[in-house]
């Protein structure tokens, strides 16, 4: 869990942040036609008359996309619309083949939900646009720049999730998006990959004087395609708005584009006309009125969600709240943890949790441990060696380094590298030498100054390169000095 230390300053303003998230669903086919979904295939190899918007074609909704959207709404504890309809959102853009996007407007599938401590305003279904690729210097039309449209992505099922403006810092926004991502991942409805665009997040940002309830003018931030960019983008925008207001200026309602290279924000070129999408009910589609059977099927398909998992880990295993949340929100960590825990009932849950969330995370960063060379059973074994005092803490870290680099079983690594705790026979001589070498310290310990023990234990540790158990060494020293 990221802990952020903020220096207490007199902050006259507080940010008010809401997120709009687009999630590409992981169905077999597109939202309204039978083309297979693809990522990274050759351009325009997954198209048909329907998703190219040919004259006379008609959309037919994908049942699985509706099922996934129902699962998402249930997971976000939303209220289901008994009957929702699709609208046409009209605008011209080369990535929009029909000149309108089929989306849900005034009656979304779901509204009024919650995830963690953020309220969800609405959840609706729509279709993704195609991809516009800049053609480079060779692609010019009458001397002007050209782009090439790839319709492979066009028509991918999307779920749009809009939150209430319940977030008040960029860190909190990032943290909440991680929870949402973990939840969606757990549902198995999306790849939720921000690099590849299967999870996309826009933010609405405004600030207001601390302690007031009014909402300031908000700006819309786009193109923040990683957690880091999201946090940086929001932080930069909050700072910009604060500076504006402090300088007596006013925030202008606009759409800003985050530039990952500079970390700066730039206004998108203003459109020729104000937004007027001329929404009207899509006459080619009939209403969506989920039946009890459809709802039951979605409910049955729900796995344990991160929020519930955190509570369970805390309650049943007694893990500290923040550790439980980290394991649950980064469900790949939780999965690794639980799989290690079940490898052998004898593994201590607390020690294991800290080795996963602290030591392993420090070494792997954002990488899913399941994709690292470290096997969950191997980590469990290492934790058991630690608990059985067969290996010291610092030696165990060295073992883990080796496991992260090359895999392998900890016991073998301990033997191979001679990292096992020094046995009593070996220690006898080392302890004797350490007392001899530190006569002053030995005298003070005899006289009752316990902290003088440190020098002798330190010498033992130095000589055994950390392979000695500190408690055992102290016991042996006291025994030799006649204090046992």
């Amino acid at each position, binding site marked *: 869990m990221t802990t952020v230390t903020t220096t207490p300053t007199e902050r006259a303003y507080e940010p008010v942040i809401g997120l709009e998230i687009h999630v590409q669903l992981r169905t077999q086919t597109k939202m309204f036609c039978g083309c297979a979904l693809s990522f990274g295939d050759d351009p325009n190899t997954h198209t048909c*008359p329907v998703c*190219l*918007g*040919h*004259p*006379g*074609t*008609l*959309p*037919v*909704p994908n049942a699985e996309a509706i099922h996934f959207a129902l699962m998402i709404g249930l997971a976000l504890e939303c209220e289901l619309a008994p009957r929702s309809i699709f609208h*046409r959102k*009209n605008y*011209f853009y*080369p990535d929009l*083949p*029909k*000149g*309108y996007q089929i989306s849900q407007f005034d009656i979304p599938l779901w509204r009024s939900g919650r995830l963690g401590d953020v309220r969800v305003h609405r959840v609706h279904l729509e279709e993704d646009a195609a991809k516009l690729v800049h053609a480079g210097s060779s692609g010019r*039309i*009458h*001397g*002007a720049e050209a782009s090439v*449209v790839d319709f492979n992505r066009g028509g991918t099922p999307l779920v749009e999730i809009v939150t209430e403006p319940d977030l008040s810092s960029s860190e909190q926004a990032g943290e909440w998006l991680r929870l949402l991502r973990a939840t969606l991942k757990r549902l198995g409805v999306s790849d939720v990959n921000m690099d590849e665009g299967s999870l996309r997040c826009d933010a609405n940002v405004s600030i207001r004087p601390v302690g007031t309830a009014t909402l300031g003018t908000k700006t819309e931030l786009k193109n923040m395609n990683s957690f880091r960019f999201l946090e940086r983008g929001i932080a930069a925008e909050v700072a910009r708005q604060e500076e504006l207001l402090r300088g007596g200026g006013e925030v202008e309602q606009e759409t800003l584009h985050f530039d990952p290279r500079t970390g700066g924000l730039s206004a998108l070129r203003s459109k*020729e006309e104000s937004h*007027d999408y*001329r*929404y*009207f009910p899509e*006459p*080619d*589609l*009939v209403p969506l009125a989920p039946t009890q059977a459809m709802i039951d099927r979605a409910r049955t398909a729900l796995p344990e969600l991160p929020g519930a998992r955190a509570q369970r880990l805390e309650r049943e295993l007694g893990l500290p709240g923040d550790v439980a949340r980290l394991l649950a929100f980064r469900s790949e960590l939780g999965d690794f943890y639980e799989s290690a825990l079940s490898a052998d009932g004898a593994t201590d849950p607390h020690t294991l949790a800290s080795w996963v969330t602290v030591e392993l995370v420090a070494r792997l960063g954002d990488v899913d441990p399941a994709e690292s060379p470290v096997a969950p059973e191997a980590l469990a074994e290492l934790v058991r060696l630690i608990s059985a005092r067969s290996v010291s803490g610092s030696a165990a870290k060295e073992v883990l380094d080796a496991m992260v680099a090359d895999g392998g079983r900890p016991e073998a690594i301990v033997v191979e590298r001679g990292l096992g705790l020094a046995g009593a026979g070996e220690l006898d001589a080392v302890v004797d030498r350490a007392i001899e070498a530190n006569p002053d310290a030995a005298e003070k310990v005899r006289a009752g100054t316990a902290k003088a023990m440190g020098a002798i234990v330190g010498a033992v540790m130095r000589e055994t390169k950390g392979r000695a158990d500190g408690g055992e060494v102290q016991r042996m020293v006291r025994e030799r000095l006649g204090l046992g």
Partner: protein
Amino acid sequence: MSELLELTAARAAECVRAGELSPAEIFSAYRERAEADDLGAFLWLPEEPPRPAAATTSADPPLGGVPLAVKDIFCVEGAPTTAGSRILDGYRPPYTATPVERLAAAGAPMLGKTNMDEFAMGSSNENSAYMPVRNPWSPDRVPGGSSGGSAAAVAAGLAPWSIGTDTGGSIRQPASLCGLVGLKPTYGAVSRYGMIAFASSLDQCGPITRDVTDAALLLRHLVAGRRDPCDSTSVDFPEEIELPSSHDLGGLRVGVVPELSEAATIDAGVKAVFDAALERIEELGGGVEEISLPHSEHGLSAYYVLAPAEASANLSRYDGVRFGLRSGDGDLLSLYERTRAEGFGDEVKRRIMLGTYALSSGYYEAYYGRAQRVRTKIAEDFRAAFERVDLVVTPTSPSVAFRLGERTADPMAMYMSDYCTVPMSLAGLPAVSIPAGLSEDLPVGLQITGPAFTENRILAAAHALERAFGFDSSPARRPAAAAPGR
């Protein structure tokens, strides 16, 4: 040969099945006639007849290989498909519309593509970007629209039968003006997949034929007993379409709507033929009752909000990116604006503007929202009426075929052509137009409508009346045809 051309399509199909005629004979006879088209009815004929029964499912297909004139609004794989618009000049779709596919599979191969008002917007066929169509009954008059090419081709004997599309009257009105049978099925009965959209919540495909039996036969195979999984709004037709055989109206209660049949816009000659038809209905044992559809007079207003609004979105895909015409000077805005300015004709632009305005911020509720509510009221009016009567009859068109150019300067006057047909479209109801007589030596149509999915009832009544009227659908057989007057 000329005898062959006199046969109704159903009769020709019977002859094929009896071994008296071959599909190739029929195809080439009509192919020759279609090639000699001087009415502007066809936009395209294939170089050679489609490979026999490529899509046919049985060796002895029920439609016998009798070829079909197809309105150019239906996508046919590899065949030029323009919807009467410059913006689709040269467009060859990568797929085929379900209605065309189903009829071809049943043994009605495509004869050619027929002319139409651009994107089905018009009531005279003068809005075709390619050429106007002339009415075979009188070449200085319009055939009606938007399925004017399909109607003219069948009336002139250039094709045995045809399919068109009807949004507010585009099958029924040209059928009426050309002395033919034109059926707009219940919304949802026939798949819209591959039919270029004008107004999606109103568009329906249906037959334009020489008689009621041919219409029933085509409808049977358009419906094909099952919905089309490619069209979310298509439904399983609840019963099989029968070939009608009634000779009377035994006990049917038939409603007459003063709001429609006595409106000021109805010409006296049309009214006279309509009144005579009511007498025939009673002679055949039908009970004529006056009923009211109080909101039907607002149908046209609602229609001219809803249809252009839907059209404004449906036509956004013509942007010069993936198919069709492209223009512009190199920037994106001009690509859009020039392509569409050059590709669309005046009427299409007018409706795009009207529809865009009706949906735009600040006007949606006043126009679109209210029009949708009028639509609800009109559907309720019909429901109430059908508690009292089995069928409702009206004139199909307020006037007979008018002269080319007569109404082009006045959009509102042109729109009035749909006055009697639009209410059924708004309510999604089936309606057929059959020729009921002549006024000024030109055909006058009678419209018969019923509750949703009562096509069998409507066609049975139409069949009985057709026999009673004894109308000859061929202008060529009229004594006056040799020397067209006026």
